């Protein structure tokens, strides 16, 4: 995954008009994917937007090699994931990481103060348990959440066999359940 993320220094790339159009299409249909991957790691909307934009900038620079739609999405997920992890590490170094929890975005919002407190507590514990997962399980469980547990699509994005994705998803959820008992 790391090998796909170049760090130095970006050459100026100007695509021709047909590639520009293709890039616009990819930008339109994959921006939510990049944003959600970043959000799953960073749990902060502003940071996630910034990282997703950076990922698209990198994608633009290598776009002539990544025109195939499936390859593009897989590459975008990987680079976004790596950039988001880098951002977290940098933030941890500054000890300024935001741990915004999106309790208000829960599917079934709690009604009482106790419920709100309990939900917040649960979200924090879940975030902590997620961070403790090995990276290969964490990326599968987050992509599973993004793709509605579509293991075939997750496999395509990570270039893994579907059976491997199912197995990792199983173990990841089991570990989370054990940590949150």
């Amino acid at each position, binding site marked *: 995954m790391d090998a796909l993320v170049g760090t130095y220094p970006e*050459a100026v790339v100007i695509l021709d008009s047909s590639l520009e159009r293709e890039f616009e299409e990819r930008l339109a249909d994959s921006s939510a994917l990049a944003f959600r991957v970043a959000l799953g790691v960073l749990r902060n909307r502003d940071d996630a*937007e910034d990282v997703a*934009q950076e990922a698209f900038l990198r994608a633009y620079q290598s776009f002539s090699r990544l025109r195939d739609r499936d390859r593009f999405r897989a590459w975008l997920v990987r680079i976004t994931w790596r950039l988001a992890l880098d951002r977290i590490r940098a933030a941890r170094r500054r000890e300024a990481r935001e741990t915004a929890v999106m309790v208000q*975005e829960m599917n*079934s919002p709690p009604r009482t103060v106790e419920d709100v407190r309990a939900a917040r507590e649960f979200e924090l514990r879940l975030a902590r348990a997620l961070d403790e997962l090995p990276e290969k399980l964490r990326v599968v469980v987050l992509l599973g959440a993004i793709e509605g547990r579509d293991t075939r699509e997750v496999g395509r994005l990570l270039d893994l066999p579907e059976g491997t994705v199912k197995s990792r998803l199983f173990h990841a959820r089991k570990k989370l359940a054990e940590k*949150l008992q």
Partner: protein
Amino acid sequence: MSCERFKTRLTDFALGAEDAEFGAHLDACASCRAELDAQRSLLASIDRGLASMVAGEPAGDFAAHVRRRIAENASAPHPWFAGWLPVTVAALALIVLVSFWMIRRPDAPPERAKETPSAQTARPPREPQSAQVTPAVPAPSNAGGPRTIRPPRPPQSAANREPEVLVPRSEMEAFLRFYQPVRDGQADASSLMARATLASEPIRPLTTTALEISLLEIEPLTEEGRQKGSSERR
């Protein structure tokens, strides 16, 4: 009793693992059914929590921001040498390393460079100071003859190397005693000289006196001496 046996399999079952035996046990065990419900509820909460973590859409102007960043990147000044920077840095680092290596090893003989660390450590320890005084030429038969003293060499460049001096063997010990503090920086050579001058009588310039060689006296041979010489030759 049997419930304890299934405790570890409960989470797997809740996650969808096939377990006919546990399924049969559930029909008869309300406690395990309740626990399974709790486990499924926990997993559902986890899934909801995960989904909420990644829920959301990027802002409406996300694409515009991406385009702006691409444009900024394209218009940002990129010096022509930017792509060569890593190569340049690597080359400079190499030059510095080679220069450093050459400065550090101007006098080292080639054999020494080939020595391994183990060979260096296996070398016998250096002999004491006096043992380093070795003759540069074969020692003359007379004990009082001049000898070449090689003072121990600190690591110095060729330009700074100390000269060799000739010291009579009888004065070698005194010389070394004088030289040692000067070499170690404990004493200044000129001050030592000044002190030596004060302590003894002033140094007079060398004077040379011509050798007096008396003429050989040759006495003419007598007849008796001539005969004696010829008989000896025979």
